[in-house]
């Protein structure tokens, strides 16, 4: 772990990633303190100040009803990060457990789980989330359900491939010989070998959840107004191109910065941990 941290620190790109992600997290967590107009996160209207280009008071300009864009972006980060954490917190344990079962138990389990995984992976990821969100009401919780539903199979497949290889290794056989339970072998013997790959994928995925969630709300299938959301801000801003360019450009950049940060860290981790698959 120490060694990993040291090698990461020697890589300027990974450092940049850590910096970007830290900025995003700090911005989100301390939004109530940092945001210049905290009440602009809600349904506030200020028609004396609408559609103003970036200025000293409004560093990223104001939107069509006069709300400070910077404030709304900080608050939007809160929801994006929350979603990323919750989605991964649900999808990863489910996916990993199923992957371990399919890889280690084999037989009927393997067949059933992997065919189910194939079915989920056979619908383009975004399309699955779009159709789930389409039939459900567009709320925060449903968004989590939709994105979680499209995410777990990737972890199942990843862990399955590792577990299938580890299953025949000596240390697993040794544990079986001394009579360890299947649960013990799966979670205590095999799981630790999956951790580097899973961790790397989680770092990359934290960014991609933000990306997918913003895509859903861009299509009007995500968090509903007045709650600030990066995707719907870009969608709204796109209607005012090219004159009010800041409306679409800053929320778009906000997505790019957050996802790029996570990708830089994940990419560095992949180099160090060799968890490329």
């Amino acid at each position, binding site marked *: 772990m120490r060694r990993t941290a040291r090698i990461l620190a020697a890589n300027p790109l990974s450092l940049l990633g850590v910096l970007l992600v830290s900025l995003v997290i700090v911005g989100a967590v301390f939004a109530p303190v940092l945001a210049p107009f905290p009440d602009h996160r809600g349904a506030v209207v200020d028609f004396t100040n609408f559609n103003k280009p970036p200025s000293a008071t409004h560093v990223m300009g104001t939107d069509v009803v006069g709300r400070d864009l910077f404030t709304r972006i900080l608050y939007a980060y809160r929801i994006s990060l929350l979603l990323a954490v919750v989605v991964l917190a649900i999808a990863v344990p489910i996916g990993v457990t199923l992957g371990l079962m399919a890889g280690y138990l084999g037989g009927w389990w393997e067949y059933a789980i992997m065919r189910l995984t194939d079915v989920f992976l*056979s619908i*383009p990821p975004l399309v699955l989330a*779009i159709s789930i969100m*389409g*039939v*459900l009401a567009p709320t925060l919780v449903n968004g989590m359900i939709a994105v979680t539903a499209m995410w777990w199979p990737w972890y199942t497949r990843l862990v399955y491939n590792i577990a299938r290889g580890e299953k025949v290794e000596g240390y697993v056989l040794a544990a079986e010989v001394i009579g360890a339970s299947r649960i013990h072998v799966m979670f205590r013997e095999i799981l630790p070998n999956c951790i580097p790959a899973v961790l790397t994928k989680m770092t990359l995925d934290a960014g991609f959840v933000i990306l997918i969630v913003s*895509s859903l709300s*861009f299509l009007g299938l995500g968090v509903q107004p007045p709650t600030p959301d990066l995707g719907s801000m870009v969608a709204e801003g796109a209607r005012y191109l090219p004159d009010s360019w800041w409306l*679409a450009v800053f929320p778009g950049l906000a997505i790019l910065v957050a996802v790029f940060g996570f990708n830089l860290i994940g990419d560095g981790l992949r180099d160090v941990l060799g968890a490329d698959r």
Partner: protein
Amino acid sequence: MIPVLRLAAKRIGTSLLVLFGVSVLIFCIARVIPGDPARVALGPNATAEQVANLRAQLRLDEPLVAQYGHFLADLARGDLGRSLYTNRPVTTDIAEFLPATLELILVAGIMMIAFGLPLGILAARFRGRWPDHLIRVLSLLGVSAPSFVWAVGLMLVFSYYLGWFPIAGRIASQFEIGRVTGFLLIDTLLAGNGAAFRSAAAHLVLPAFALALSGIGQAARLTRANMIETYETPYIEMARAYGFPERRVANRYAFRPSLIPSLTIIGLDLAALLGNAFLVEAVFGWPGLSRYGVQVILRKDLNAIVGTVLIISAMFILVNIIVDVLTVLLNPRIRHAQRGATP
């Protein structure tokens, strides 16, 4: 050739099974709408009679399994039901909107391969030096923004500010092109209208590039990783020891073996374009299947949702089969498996 056919047959077999699973999944998703799906679809202003009619049409009063049975029977006859949004058979709608999306995706796919693979080769060849670092940063940037952000950015710079490309749509409005294939690049050529062809091509560039960007990044990263692995092999050392030109070593002797493991994942990325097309079509007002999909989803148009997702998934699976077969065709070790080792 025989192993290729056998593999293709086997893949098509499992794929049909998976497609069956997809149809069950989509069908279930479309039926879990909270409340009465017919009421939700028709909206609060519909009369009780209208709702009852729709319930009967969708056979919502029957058990779920029976509903699915009817759906399968209809599907076997090539019938996906009627769309509430367009009031036409869903198959008709899909046939109308699919070519525009396919045209966009095909061009994006070509861009993805035409830019992604050479960038990956360059990065591997100059590993650890500036071209490698530059390509790494660009690739990561490419995958770090959703395609709608790239679409908006490209549109702002190249359409509005520079004026190099048209802003939206598939072709300038003055052109009336008879529909033959639905692919404008082909139809304009069939009509012998060069100006219309150029207009259609110009309209395609930005949406396709916005769609391709993340795929270009992925393809470049993947190619680089596999090339670097190949560079460690004895046969590359041998090629260098014999003084084969370094460019030829990269483009031929290291690239070809590296392509085989890359293909499967490139296939997945290609297929993922089907999903991202939803975002790009929305930005550029591209009259394709994805825009239709969003419309029917927002209107809770059950038949159309099921039909659209099913068609997209079928294409997704088809792309993967094609890629699998290609992998075999490119890999002599599998292609010639039946000959075995000769002394």
